[in-house]
């Protein structure tokens, strides 16, 4: 059954069942991925998938349901499921179905030339990742991941208040991970590229960077425990920001789950720090013209020169706070209820290069990877304690690699103690929680546990 016909059937059946308002959120996507191992494609996946999320108001309360197949059974399942779920809701939250914004921004996130790249070319890219990694250094014992992927998603939303919007986005990803062996030592290094400009997919560069990172870690040792000045490399700073991004959500604030409660307009970070949420970024991984409730998106500074200027809102939290939605309603998937998430969310870059930041730090530690963000970080308190590795810096120079350390601190304290920001802004791969980016940050000090 076609989407339009399915929608009409659902809305008709819903009306007959006494549903007061209804909305469908349809996601249709295509994916491709291939992994190369020892010159052969050893894993190849293609899919075409769809899903329909449904929400409806019954007796004033909103219930959700979803299906992945568009048949008559699913029409009934959506209507009956949402109705049953609405009947158990006792939250007093007022949920609004949106009639549509007066206008929507122009956003470019679908690149037809990326779609046109052939499967063979994509596979060649993955093969090149493996070959280049092996060619970079004879100590590369294996390339345990050389993979490439492409995905394309179209989102369509419609409700009984007249909203009808759709949006199309695509992106490709490349990933390489190399294993280095020297004697008893085993080190890994990995690099990822994401974007929808295929010209920027440079297999040689990516593979060399991964291998160089792995070799740079040979001979790593620990350091004495203590407080050190720390450079959080852009990818580490980005992962920390992603982990703690929920503190900017008005929902977390209103539920008492964010320590930013009551701090609007206050200086919460070093004056060097500006954080931007930009859904209009050209070809951004989380770019979109409308959010998960159909509200037009817009760009805003969440922190400006250290000052907290806004939380991220959807319609429900905005109404509670008496403000406008910031267009940050999220539907991580068609199965998920409406939440709040950043879009393209990043720390504004500074002017100094990464190397200049190393000399500015003088003595300290560069953290190039952390492990355990999903378990060793507490988004409520901001506390983190993570396994880490990187380099020791003395007299403005990297002197040796370090491992078997943990770095501990508090996210809010990190924001307050940013001393300098590099110009090397980079984004990760987009996920359910937005597309997050950061430059390298120089932090006054963090607690390092080593020997």
């Amino acid at each position, binding site marked *: 059954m076609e989407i339009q016909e399915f929608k009409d059937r659902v809305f008709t059946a819903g009306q007959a069942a006494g549903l007061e308002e209804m909305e469908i959120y349809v996601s249709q996507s295509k994916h491709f991925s291939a992994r190369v191992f020892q010159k052969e494609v050893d894993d190849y996946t293609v899919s*075409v998938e769809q899903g329909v999320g449904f929400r409806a108001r019954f007796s004033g309360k909103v219930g959700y349901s979803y299906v992945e197949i568009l048949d008559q059974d699913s029409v009934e399942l959506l209507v009956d499921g949402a109705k049953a779920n609405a009947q158990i809701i006792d939250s007093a939250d007022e949920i609004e179905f949106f009639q549509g914004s007066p206008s929507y921004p122009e956003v470019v996130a679908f690149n037809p030339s990326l779609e046109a790249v052939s499967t063979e070319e994509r596979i060649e890219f993955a093969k090149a990742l493996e070959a280049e990694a092996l060619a970079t250094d004879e100590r590369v014992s294996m390339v345990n991941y050389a993979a490439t992927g492409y995905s394309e998603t179209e989102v369509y939303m419609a409700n009984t208040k007249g909203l009808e919007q759709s949006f199309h986005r695509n992106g490709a990803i490349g990933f390489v991970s190399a294993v280095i062996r020297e004697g008893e030592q085993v080190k890994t290094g990995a690099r990822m590229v994401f974007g929808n400009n295929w010209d920027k997919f440079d297999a040689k560069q990516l593979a060399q960077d991964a291998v160089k990172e792995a070799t740079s870690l040979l001979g790593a040792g620990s350091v004495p425990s203590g407080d050190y000045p720390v450079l959080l490399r852009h990818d580490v700073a980005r992962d920390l920001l992603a982990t703690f991004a929920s503190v900017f959500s008005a929902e977390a604030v209103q539920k008492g789950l964010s320590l930013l409660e009551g701090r609007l307009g206050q200086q919460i970070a070093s004056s060097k720090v500006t954080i931007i949420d930009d859904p209009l970024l050209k070809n951004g991984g989380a770019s979109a013209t409308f959010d998960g409730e159909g509200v037009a998106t817009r760009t805003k500074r969440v922190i400006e020169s250290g000052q907290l200027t806004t939380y991220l809102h959807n319609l429900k939290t905005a109404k509670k706070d008496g403000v406008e939605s910031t267009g940050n309603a999220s539907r991580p998937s068609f199965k998920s209820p409406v939440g709040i998430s950043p879009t393209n969310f990043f720390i504004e870059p500074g002017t100094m290069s990464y190397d200049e930041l190393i000399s500015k730090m003088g003595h300290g530690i560069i953290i190039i990877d952390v*492990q355990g963000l999903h378990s060793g970080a507490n988004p409520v308190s901001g506390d983190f304690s993570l396994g880490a590795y990187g380099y020791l810096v003395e007299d403005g120079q990297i002197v040796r690699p370090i491992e078997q350390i943990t770095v501990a601190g508090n996210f809010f304290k990190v924001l307050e103690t940013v001393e300098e920001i590099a110009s090397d802004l980079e984004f990760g791969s987009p996920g359910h929680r937005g597309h997050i980016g950061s430059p390298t940050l120089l932090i006054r000090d963090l607690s390092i546990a080593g020997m």
Partner: protein
Amino acid sequence: MLAESLVTDVILAALSTGGDFAEVFMEDTRGTNLRMLNGSVEEGISGRDFGIGIRIFQGFRSVYAYTNDASRENLLKVAKEAAAALSGIQQVTSVVLERLVVERFNPVRLEPDQVSHKDKVGIMKRAHVAATGYDKQITQVAITYLDTDQHVLIANSEGLFAQDRRIRTRLGINAVASKGNEKQSAFRGPGRHMGFELFDRIDVEEIARDAARSAVTMVNADYAPSGKYPVIIDNEFGGVIFHEACGHGLEATSVAKGASVFSGKLGEQVASPLVTAVDDGTIPNAWGSQNIDDEGTKTRRNVLIENGILKGYMVDRLNGRRMNMEPTGSSRRQSYKFAPTSRMTNTFICAGTSTKEEIISNTEYALFARHMGGGSVNPATGEFNFAVAEGYIVRNGKIEKPVRGGTLIGQGSQILQKIDMVASNLATGQGMCGSQSGSIPTDVGQPTIRVSEITVGGRKEAN
């Protein structure tokens, strides 16, 4: 579910370009997910996951395709598209499917769709009331209720045609304790491969109060000292450390390509002689149990390590080809959207002979990790890290005081050698394990163990 004749045609279409093995996996899953915050139900979602995955092997190569459209025309199209990734001429020209009689050892008494939403919410309210009432420092309690009812059909070119049904139920309790500006949370998530009768088997109130107790204890605790010193890891969810630091390294996914520290070490001493560890998918109604795995192989009890000697791996069909080993009933996937691979089911270190009390009283100084948070591991290097969700300092044979914020870091294979005491109080806890083939339910478990030395990351120097 699909007719056998259609499945046969799809398999043959998938093999049209020289594949030597093809498999069809179909699922139709209904599920309910309810969320309560501070006593009021905030969200209710119910849904239906439906799709078909088609997998083809040619030697060590694997092609996977999936779709939501089960029409004959579409399935044949998808099978041919997937086949186009390989090149060759058709080798397999006929398939005779034979229905597998699946032995069902995970009986379900109360199917989720026979229980009203009201009764499900009733359980959540009980958990909420117990956790909230524990202490006035508890400022927030979030309860989740989840049930899934998965019907699967698995067929392959070797003639397998199996159908199975998996029903799982789980309650999640998250208690937050506050003191001034500080907040600490604790989570408990009891779940089983069974229906609503789960709630006759567990004490909802006691588990909820335990979550609250843990959060309150931690919000009043000092930070854990950092350094390298002995660590006692308690039973039940403490097993997550074996799961992450060793279990993943014993999955064929990483062993087959030589990417694991355990590759090529069968028969070698890889752990302290006190350690015997198994992965057992056949424990009736356990969270990670299944009658058959997601390739249709019967699950079994796999001994991984026996008295410190490496005895076996968890093997799926594809990696089994690389390793020249039979599948061990360990192949799993989150849904039809994932090709299956070797994964854990219920994995635990077996009971030893000490008691927990003996371990504590025989320890001069240690971190006692009573409850572990999650963790992760780099399978190539074996380096892991884990958050200690509820910790205590043991001094002179006694538990001295609670500590928070500790992280355990190290290398799985080294830790295994350093286990110097194992208690007899084996117990398991439930988790969702995320890896290559998605997020799947697994039990972790162990008795209380002592490790002579682990690096503990924290915010204070050890003293």
